[in-house]
């Protein structure tokens, strides 16, 4: 029975990380209809900013946490100013493809910038909590618990923003139909800026949590970016609740497969899930089918 709980805790922790990484990606996809390929690098940035502020500058931990969120949002804003806004201005350009390619470039530049500033050596994230607590038969490391709580909080904040604020309504309206939203007076450009900054802030906190669980390295965000993409595809691109549900579901399944059949089968399982879902439900488990008329 203890084994069951150990696998459960492992699955929930990884699920929380997958979920928080997927939210940012899904948010941008939902609102802009594009894949932000720099999401992983923004996540890495969040981890390194906290490290730089706390270890490098010797400032207090809360300031490091705030800085990782602020710099993530700033990076999102820069992506809007430097890439999205310029691509939007070009009437004949293929918006989705151009933004995707440009953000690949931004990701490479950001990753190499981090490499130049901090070096390639793995570093220890100072925001870590050691020890564990017992909850009945469960032994939960504090670090895992904090990651799960932070992920749930981040999800709640994003959901509240989207559902109960004017800004959230504007985002949802733009996501449904950009042109119609514009005609109704929604400043779509500003919505894009806000969405990218929000996504960047979430990436920043995700990078901080992830690096506290593993360690800092310039390629920190690559794996979560890939996993988040898998979650978003399985859930249905742009579906926020779907991304969260699928993240936890697949992470638990992955943990169980790793335990039952061997750790090496975890990732192939995720890839199989994508293939099966794309065949069975091309728009994802919770995605809406897009109808295009000729």
């Amino acid at each position, binding site marked *: 029975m203890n084994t069951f709980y150990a696998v459960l805790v492992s699955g929930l922790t990884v699920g929380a990380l997958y979920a928080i990484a997927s939210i940012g990606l899904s948010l941008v996809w939902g609102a802009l209809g594009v894949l932000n390929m720099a999401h992983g690098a923004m996540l890495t940035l969040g981890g390194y900013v906290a490290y730089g502020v706390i270890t490098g500058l010797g400032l207090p931990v809360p300031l490091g946490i705030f800085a990782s969120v602020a710099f993530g949002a700033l990076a999102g804003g820069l992506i809007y100013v430097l890439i999205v806004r310029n691509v939007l201005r070009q009437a004949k350009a293929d918006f989705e493809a151009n933004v995707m390619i440009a953000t690949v470039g931004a990701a490479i530049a950001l990753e190499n910038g981090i490499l130049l500033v901090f070096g390639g050596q793995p570093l220890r994230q100072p925001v870590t909590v050691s020890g564990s607590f017992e909850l009945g038969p469960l032994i939960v490391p504090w670090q895992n618990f904090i990651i799960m709580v932070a992920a749930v909080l981040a999800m709640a904040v994003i959901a509240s923003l989207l559902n109960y604020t004017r800004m959230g309504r504007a985002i949802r309206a733009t996501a449904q139909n950009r042109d119609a939203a514009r005609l109704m007076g929604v400043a779509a450009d500003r919505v894009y800026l806000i969405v990218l900054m929000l996504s960047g802030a979430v990436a920043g906190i995700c990078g901080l949590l992830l690096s506290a669980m593993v360690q800092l390295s310039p390629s920190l965000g690559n794996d979560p970016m890939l996993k988040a993409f898998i979650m978003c595809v399985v859930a249905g691109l742009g579906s926020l609740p779907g991304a969260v549900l699928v993240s936890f579901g697949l992470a638990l399944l992955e*943990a169980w497969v790793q335990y039952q059949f061997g750790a090496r089968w975890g990732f192939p399982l995720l890839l199989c899930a994508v293939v099966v879902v794309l065949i069975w439900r091309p728009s994802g488990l919770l995605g809406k089918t897009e109808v295009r008329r000729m």
Partner: protein
Amino acid sequence: MKRRQLLTGLGAGGLGAAALSALNAGAAHAQTGDPIPIGAALPMSGPSAGDGIEFKNGLDLAAAEINAAGGILGRPVEIHIEDTREMGADLVGQAMQRLIDRYNTPAIVNGYNLGANMVELDVAADNDVIVLHNNTQIAHQERVKSDPERYYGGFQTDPAEYWYGPGCLNFLNELVDAGQWKPANRKIAIVASAVEYSIVIGNAIRDKAAEFGWEVSVYETVPFPTNQWGPVLAKLREDPPAAILVTHFLAQDLAQFMTQFLTQPTPSLIYMQYGPSLPVFREIGGEAINGVIYSTVIGGLPDAFAAKYREDYRANFGDTASWLTGSQTYDALWMYATAAAVAGGPGEPFNGEQARKVAGVLKGMVHRGMSGSFRFDPEGLVAYSYPTETKDPSLGLPHQFLQHQDYRTDPKLIGPQLYADSQFMLPPWLS
């Protein structure tokens, strides 16, 4: 001192700065003073960056010392580095070829590169350059033996990974025989990662386990790299073995293993290999790494012979720099410089005649470096391992067993007996 005299004396001992200075002083020809470009294809970013940085440090230190001794026959050496990032045959092969094409390097001194499939040997053969690397793979000797004429210039300056297997089992039995450790049972668990190097070691342990009186209860292969150990640990906790032998080697992942293991430790000895020699293992793992045993078939020794090297290394690269790791390329460059000087010069790419002369000297020489004694198996061109492969410590690199007894200080060398400077201590979770 004449070159011939030195060549005759090679079998009796290593050549160092004094010998190189003597060769330089006696060289009657050619001293143009032009730098000799030496290449290094190192993982400066990606998962093995921690090692790559130390490899660069080792090269820089050796180059400075060689140049202070007059270079190679009066010509200073100049290090050029290409990043192999995530490694693999494509990246390593391209990086090496760029070094040759851009800088005309007659030799390339790498640390290790993973998944390169011994492409190093083909690049060296195609361009008639010398390559020295620490891939620690049995595949090196197999490739060289398959075509010795073609692969004459490829040297692996450490023993094959295979020797980790019997070496580790032998060490466990020595602990038991000496009464230093009383295992709860005769079970061992092997945790390998999905790279050839790690799997070969895991298989060597598995295949030899019964011979040494051990039963393999779990053999788990994890992805490379990996940092979520939950499901693996759950399996290990179900049937706790006497020893958990982790053959995955990335320092940061191993530190995570310890952090996650200690939330619910089992009464098992933890043995790892290589990764814990890096400072990042201590930095990330902190107190959780106390008690971990690890081994390496190559690494700087904490002996008197290497004292100045250790001092200089830390003075140049900081107190947390790993002289254990940097010694690999440090020794390799010294070996090459000495061999090139004895052979009459390094030559240049596509000068097969001169490259063969350098290779010939390397093949016959014995070099006492910071990691111990280097001597190459003349057929496979791989350094010998002491004590499992050769019983003569003057002709093989010691397979070192170390233990982290206090994460704030250097690990302690607890084996082999001839080199050990400390005693094994029961890990905190067992005592």
